[in-house]
């Protein structure tokens, strides 16, 4: 049963595709694969540590202040990662922009904290959050790959070229909001057709 806790986050209970959570960052920062990697890393850091802490001290939190306490813990982890990214890679900080602080209210984190971490033991929470962040990372890298390739013609990660610029006039619409919704819609439909979702 233990491993299943991890793998369910990847596909069967993928936070974005199945639970339809965390849509805001998924659509907003997936204009470049580099951003997606940065977001995936910081998201995983916050999700795993905050849920672990919540699961550890879930016994002591009285009902009246449950949500404010959870949120202070999550927000503090986000502030820590925010400061570190601001200090160590300003370009990524510029790209992620407002969506870095918004990890605090990312529906997945508080959702998992409320639904899972505040009820289940530490070990399971670790597996669950690791699975969830892996699932989240998987989907946002996939979407940003599609959008960047079609939107700018090629994929550039940390400076070096992955796919050659074969598209002479790229569909810049892909990088704009309508393109984001469209890619997500078609992707969900395909996955539904393949019976994955």
């Amino acid at each position: 049963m233990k491993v299943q806790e991890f793998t369910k986050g990847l596909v069967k209970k993928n936070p974005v595709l199945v639970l339809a959570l965390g849509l805001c960052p998924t659509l907003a920062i997936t204009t470049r694969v580099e951003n997606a990697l940065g977001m995936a890393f910081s998201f995983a850091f916050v999700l795993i540590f905050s849920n672990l802490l919540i699961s550890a001290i879930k016994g002591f939190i009285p009902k009246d202040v449950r949500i404010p306490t959870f949120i202070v813990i999550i927000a503090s982890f986000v502030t820590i990662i925010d400061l570190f990214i601001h200090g160590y890679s300003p370009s990524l900080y510029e790209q992620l922009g407002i969506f870095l602080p918004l990890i605090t209210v990312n529906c997945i984190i508080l959702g998992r904290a409320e639904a899972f971490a505040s009820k289940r033991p530490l070990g399971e929470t670790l597996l669950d959050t690791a699975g969830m962040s892996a699932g989240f990372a998987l989907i946002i890298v996939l979407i940003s790959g599609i959008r960047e390739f079609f939107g700018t013609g090629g994929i550039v990660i940390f400076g070096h070229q992955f796919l050659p610029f074969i598209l002479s006039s790229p569909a810049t619409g892909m990088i704009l909001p309508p393109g984001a919704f469209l890619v997500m819609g078609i992707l969900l439909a395909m996955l539904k057709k393949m019976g994955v979702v």
Partner: protein
Amino acid sequence: MENLLSIVIAAVFINNIVLTKFLGLCPFFGVSTRVRNALMMGLAVTFVMSCASILTWLIYEYLLIPFEIEYMRIVAFILVIASFVQLVEIVIRKTLPDLYRAFGIYLPLITTNCAILGVTLINVEVESYSFVASAVNGLATGLGFSLALFMMAGMRERLEISEQPVSFRGLPIAFITASLLALAFQGFSGMVE
């Protein structure tokens, strides 16, 4: 001081928080199946957004800046928003029970609504508005959110009873509708200086 009208038009149409800034998508897709629910959610979000904008601006101006701990804005703002939403829920449940029953279930949802924290951060950080401007921006963004939610709900109700491929039913078709809506709203961009 930014002229207020241009803020309102910008917040509702041009950079509509849902369709161009991608904030508040989880409730946007979750609640937009019924027009009645959408209106209720829109009202609740507009109310909380305006109050939150005022509260957070005051805290930023008179607590964070004097102590030079602006970086703490995330923790301070979200603590204020979460407590404020919980307070509203407690007060409404006692004083207006039927209003509470009408949109009670949406209140806890609002705390995790990215749009609320998003607006408060935009007010103080990205746009650095004055007090009145950020209050007006909070209200206008709430109206923008409700407008997008309302239109989406109208369309999705019609979609439910129209013919569409099986694999597109539900969320996929909702996303494609949202993409068309975003395309339409993009026509507004560049309208205000």
